[in-house]
């Protein structure tokens, strides 16, 4: 029996992992917000899925949910906002951000597990750390590398996205806290 395996996942864990992978995909259907005309790629709601997976499911299941999502994108399903998918997107300019998603969810989940009684503000800080700082720390060097841009220039481009990310942090914090209250033993 697998239940004796140290890393075994119960049926419910597998279902939750699939649910949050699917949630991240579904959020890609929300119409993206164009904030700079055609000058920059639009903000999508998808990284909200990353934040929620970490904050609701915790480190291991949250990280696996996003790993599953990235795998589904890699095999060619058009699950990224704008109907994109396949290896191309994952090694493109935003590849670093996308490939970091499992790690971001893991880190948010880890911080939440370390501090189960976190206040709303602290929860928000954890979500922001994993969902903005870690994501940018992986995504910006990648962008700089692949575009031979240099870190500071890449950073400048990404500053435009921070307000949208902060909105997502607030949403994720409120929803995650609500869900945790409704389902204490999620």
């Amino acid at each position, binding site marked *: 029996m*697998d239940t004796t395996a140290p890393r075994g996942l119960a049926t419910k864990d597998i279902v939750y992992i*699939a649910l949050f992978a699917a949630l991240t*995909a579904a959020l890609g259907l929300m119409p993206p917000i164009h904030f700079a005309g055609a000058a920059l790629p639009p903000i999508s709601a998808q990284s909200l899925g990353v934040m929620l997976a970490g904050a609701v499911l915790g480190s291991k299941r949250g990280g696996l949910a996003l790993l599953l*999502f990235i795998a589904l994108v890699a095999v060619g399903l058009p699950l990224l906002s704008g109907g994109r998918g*396949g290896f191309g997107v994952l*090694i493109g300019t935003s590849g670093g951000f996308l490939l970091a998603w499992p790690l971001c969810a893991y880190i948010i989940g880890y911080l939440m597990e370390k501090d189960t009684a976190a206040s709303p503000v602290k929860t928000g800080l954890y979500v922001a750390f994993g969902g903005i700082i870690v994501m940018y720390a992986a995504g910006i060097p990648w962008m700089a590398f692949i575009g*031979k841009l*240099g870190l500071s220039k890449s950073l400048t481009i990404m500053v435009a996205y921070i307000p949208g990310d902060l909105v997502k942090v607030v*949403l994720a914090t409120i929803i995650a806290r609500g869900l945790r209250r409704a389902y204490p033993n999620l």
Partner: protein
Amino acid sequence: MLDLYSPGSSILHRLPPAPKMLAMMFGATLLFINQSLPVTIVATLVILVLYPIAQLTLKQAFAQVRPLLIIFVLFFVVQWYFSGLELAAYVVLRLAALILLASLVTLTTRSSDMIDTMTRGLRYLKPIGVNPEKVSLAISLALRFIPVLAQITREVREAQKVRGLERSVIAVAMPMAIRAIKMADDISDAIDSRGYRS
């Protein structure tokens, strides 16, 4: 299944997914290592020639890079300004070549075949605690949930329209999230009651 696959019978379609993926990764690595613009131009042309060979149109090739046009222009302008025309052309062309190459695999391989290859490959990860059966269950469930959650997302958007935008995002999203978790709990019970051994 909804995927980006473009049906055909070319040699690239018939090639099994695993060698195709390996060849793609090898090609991508070479593109990264190479620093010369002429080589990158040749590589891009070679990849473009592969499109008609794979029974794909150049229009399809263009569709692969179109979502990135904005960022291409941005990179090109920044590079041109700081480092000159040659580097700007090299960076953008290399990026386009990478994406065209990777898309070639995506367009000529069914997602279901790719998933099969992937789950078969997971056997080798068993020693570090990966259970291929659980992974394939998770994949199937995710594919099953996506249309359901997409429907819920559409309902959220309609409700937002009715109620007036942002103000009610939480008021709508919260019950939806609870509904989704409830569904997951029920499905989990259904899986267990249908003899699944977790």
